[in-house]
C-alpha cells in the first residue's frame, strides 16, 4: 500500500485474484456479463481472515483412520459376500470372504485404536451409547459386526485345520452358531460401511460436511467394489460370479455417487477434492475403478484378468477413502473453505429475506 497523493489517479486495482486450479482453466463462478452463463445471485464476498490462520481445526487423525475407512469397507462387503456364499452353496467364496472380513476388520480396529490419543482407553468407546455421536454408534456397529465375523471366520479356520483348534466341547456350539453368526455379521455390514460417511459428514470440516448427503452412497459403493475385488483375487472364477456382479454395481454406484456429490456440494467446499494430493488420488481412484469394472466385465472369467481387476478395484477403493480423507483435512487447514461458503450462505439467506438466524447481530 502506498500513500502517495497521486493515488487517486491510479487505475482501479484488479479484483483480488482467486485461487486457481492450475490445469483446469475454467472457473465455475465468473460473472462475465454476456448472459452465456448463470450469473451469481449474490455478490462474491471479499475474503478476509485472521492472518490466514484456519478457523476450524482439522481432526487429529493420521493415515490410520483412512486405512480403517478402507478396511472397514472391505470387511463389510466381504461379510455380505460370505453370507451369499453361505446361502447359495459356494464354499470357497464363503470361506475366503469370511476370512477376508475378519482380517480386514481386525486390521481396521487395530488402526483405529492406534490412532487414539490414549490407546489404552479404547474400551471407553463402549462405556455409553450416544445416537448423536456417529463415533459411538460406529463403535457399537463395529463391535457387533466383529463378533459375528469372528465366530464365522474361526469356524472356517477350524474346518481348514481339520478340527485341530483346541475347542473341546465348544466345537459343537461353534458349528451350530456358525451360520447365524454369518447372518449377524451381514446384518451389520451395511451400517459398518455407511456409518463412516456419517462420521465424516457430522463434522465442521468444510469438505466433509458439505458432502454429507452423498458420502454414504460413495462409501457403500466403494465397499462393494473393494470386497468384490478381494473375492476376485482370492477365489477361483467359478464361484465369483456374484462378486463380479457386485463389483460392476459398485463401480457404477461409486462413479455416479461421486459425480452427483461433487455437483451438489458447495462449489468452494468441493475444490479440495480436485486439488493437490487428494485431487490426484481421487482422479486415479476413478480411473482404476473404471478399469477394474471393465476388466471384470470383459475378462472376469479368466483367473488372471479377474485377479488383476480385483487388485485395481481394491486400489480404487483405498484411493477413494484416502482422497476424501485428505481433501477434508486440507479444507480445514485453509480458512477460505470455512469462511467463504459460510459468507455465501449467509448472504443468500439475507437476500431471501431471512434475517433472524445470523450469529452476528446489530442489537
Amino acid at each position, binding site marked *: *500500500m502506498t500513500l502517495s497523493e497521486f493515488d487517486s489517479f491510479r487505475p482501479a486495482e484488479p479484483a483480488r485474484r482467486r485461487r486457481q486450479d492450475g490445469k483446469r482453466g475454467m472457473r465455475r463462478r465468473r460473472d462475465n456479463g454476456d448472459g452465456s452463463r448463470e450469473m451469481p445471485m449474490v455478490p462474491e464476498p471479499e475474503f*478476509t*481472515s*485472521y*492472518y490466514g*490462520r*484456519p*478457523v*476450524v*481445526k482439522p*481432526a*487429529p487423525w493420521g493415515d490410520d483412520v483412512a486405512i480403517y475407512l478402507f478396511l472397514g469397507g472391505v470387511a463389510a462387503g466381504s461379510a*455380505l*459376500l460370505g453370507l*451369499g456364499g453361505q446361502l*447359495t452353496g459356494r464354499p470357497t467364496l464363503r470361506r475366503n470372504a469370511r476370512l477376508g472380513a475378519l482380517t480386514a476388520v481386525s486390521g481396521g480396529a487395530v488402526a483405529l485404536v492406534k*490412532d*487414539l*490419543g*490414549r490407546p489404552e*482407553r479404547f474400551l*471407553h*468407546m463402549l*462405556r455409553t451409547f450416544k445416537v448423536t*455421536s*456417529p*463415533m459411538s454408534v460406529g463403535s457399537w456397529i463395529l463391535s457387533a459386526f466383529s463378533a459375528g465375523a469372528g465366530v464365522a471366520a474361526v469356524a472356517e479356520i477350524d474346518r481348514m485345520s481339520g478340527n485341530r483348534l483346541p475347542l473341546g466341547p465348544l466345537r459343537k456350539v461353534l458349528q451350530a452358531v456358525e451360520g447365524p453368526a454369518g447372518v449377524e455379521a451381514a446384518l451389520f455390514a*451395511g451400517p459398518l*460401511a*455407511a456409518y463412516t*460417511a*456419517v462420521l465424516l*459428514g*457430522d*463434522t*465442521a470440516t468444510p469438505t466433509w460436511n458439505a458432502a*454429507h448427503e*452423498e458420502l*454414504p*452412497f460413495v462409501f457403500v459403493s466403494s465397499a*462393494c467394489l473393494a470386497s468384490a475385488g478381494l473375492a476376485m483375487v482370492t477365489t477361483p472364477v467359478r464361484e465369483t460370479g*456374484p*462378486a463380479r*456382479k*457386485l463389483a460392476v*454395481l*459398485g463401480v457404477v454406484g461409486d462413479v455416479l455417487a461421486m459425480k452427483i456429490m461433487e455437483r451438489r456440494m458447495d462449489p468452494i467446499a468441493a475444490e479440495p477434492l480436485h486439488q493437490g494430493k487428494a485431487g490426484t488420488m481421487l482422479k486415479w481412484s476413478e480411473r482404476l475403478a473404471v478399469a477394474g469394472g471393465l476388466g471384470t466385465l470383459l475378462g472376469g472369467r479368466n483367473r488372471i484378468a479377474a485377479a488383476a481387476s480385483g487388485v485395481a478395484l481394491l486400489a480404487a477403493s483405498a484411493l477413494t477413502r484416502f482422497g476424501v480423507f485428505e481433501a477434508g483435512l486440507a479444507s480445514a487447514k485453509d*480458512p477460505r473453505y470455512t469462511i467463504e461458503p*459460510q*459468507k455465501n450462505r*449467509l448472504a443468500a439467506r*439475507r437476500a431471501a429475506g431471512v*434475517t*433472524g*438466524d*445470523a*450469529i*452476528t447481530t*446489530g*442489537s
Partner: protein
Amino acid sequence: MGQLSGPTDPTADAHWEHNHPRKGFFTDTSICIGCKACEVACKEWNHNPQDGNLELLGSSYDNTGALGASTWRHVAFIEQGQERIIEARESGRALVNLGMPRIGPPAQAAPAVTDLAEADTTPPDTADFRWLMSSDVCKHCTHAGCLDVCPTGALFRTEFGTVVVQDDVCNGCGTCVAGCPFGVIERRSNGTVKVATSREEQHAKHPEVPNVGIAQKCTLCYDRLVADETPACAKACPTTSIKFGDHDDMVETARERVATLHAQGMTEARLYGANENDGVGGTGSVFLLLDEPEVYGLPPDPRVPTADLPQMYRRAGMAVAGMAAAAALAFLGGRA
C-alpha cells in the same frame, strides 16, 4: 435427549434437575487493551503447559496464535487502516438496518438504534488507524458440536450450562476436534510444563505434561464455579472487558452496550453469539465485535454439524438399503 438445534435451555436438556442459571461470559472487545492478563491467569489457574516455542508469529502483538489444547484464552490483535474502519462501520450499520427481530422485551436504549441514518459517524477516536483486540474463548454453545459427537461421554454439560471434558474418561479419539465449528477444542500433543532455569536443569528430564493425548478446552473454570468463584480470566481482566455472570444478564448487558456504542456513532459495533436462533442455538460466551467475525478468526455463519444428523442417518440408511439390494441382486440374478 434434547433437541439438536434451535433455542433451548441446555441445562434442562441435559436433565439437570435443580434450576441453576446458565453462566457465561460477555467479552466486550471495545474496551480490551490487549494486556493478555486473561491468557496468563487462565494458564496459571488451569496448569496449562506452554505451547509452541516462544516464537514471534509476525501478527501484531499476537504471539499466541490461536485457541488450542493448552490455550483457552487467546487475545487477537488486528491492525486496520482508515478504509477498513469505514467498511466495518458500514457493515455494522447494514446489520442494524436488517431490522433483526428482537428476542425478549425491548431494551430501553432501543429507540437510539432506529435512527442510525442520522447518527454522527465521525470516528470517536483515531480515524486513520485502529487496533482491534479481542480475547477469544470457548463459546460453550447451546448446541455444542464437540459434546454431541463425543463417543465416550467424556464431554458433558455442567449444571451451569457449560461444556467440560472429563480428563479421566476421554480417550483422545479426536472426533470433537473436527466437530467444533469454532476450532476451539484440540487434542493435547505436547507442551512445556516448566522451562529450565539453570544449566544443569537443561539436561534434566522434563516433567511430564499432564493430559497428553486428551482433548482439552476452556472449562469456564468449572472448579471455581462450584465454589461460587469468578473464572480466572474474568477475575484478572483489568478493564472488565471480560464480564462473567448469568447468561441472560450477559446478553442483556451486551445489548445495552452495543446500543450505547451505536448511539455514540460507532456503528461498527455488533454482537456475536447473542442470537439464540443462530446455527448453534446461541453461545454461552457472547462477544461484542468491532468488525466482521472472520477478521477476528471467528466463523461468520457457524452451524453445529449435528443439526443435520437426522438427515445424515436417513441418507446412510438409504445407502445401506442400496448395498443390501446390490448384494441380493448379485446373488439372485441367476446361478450361472
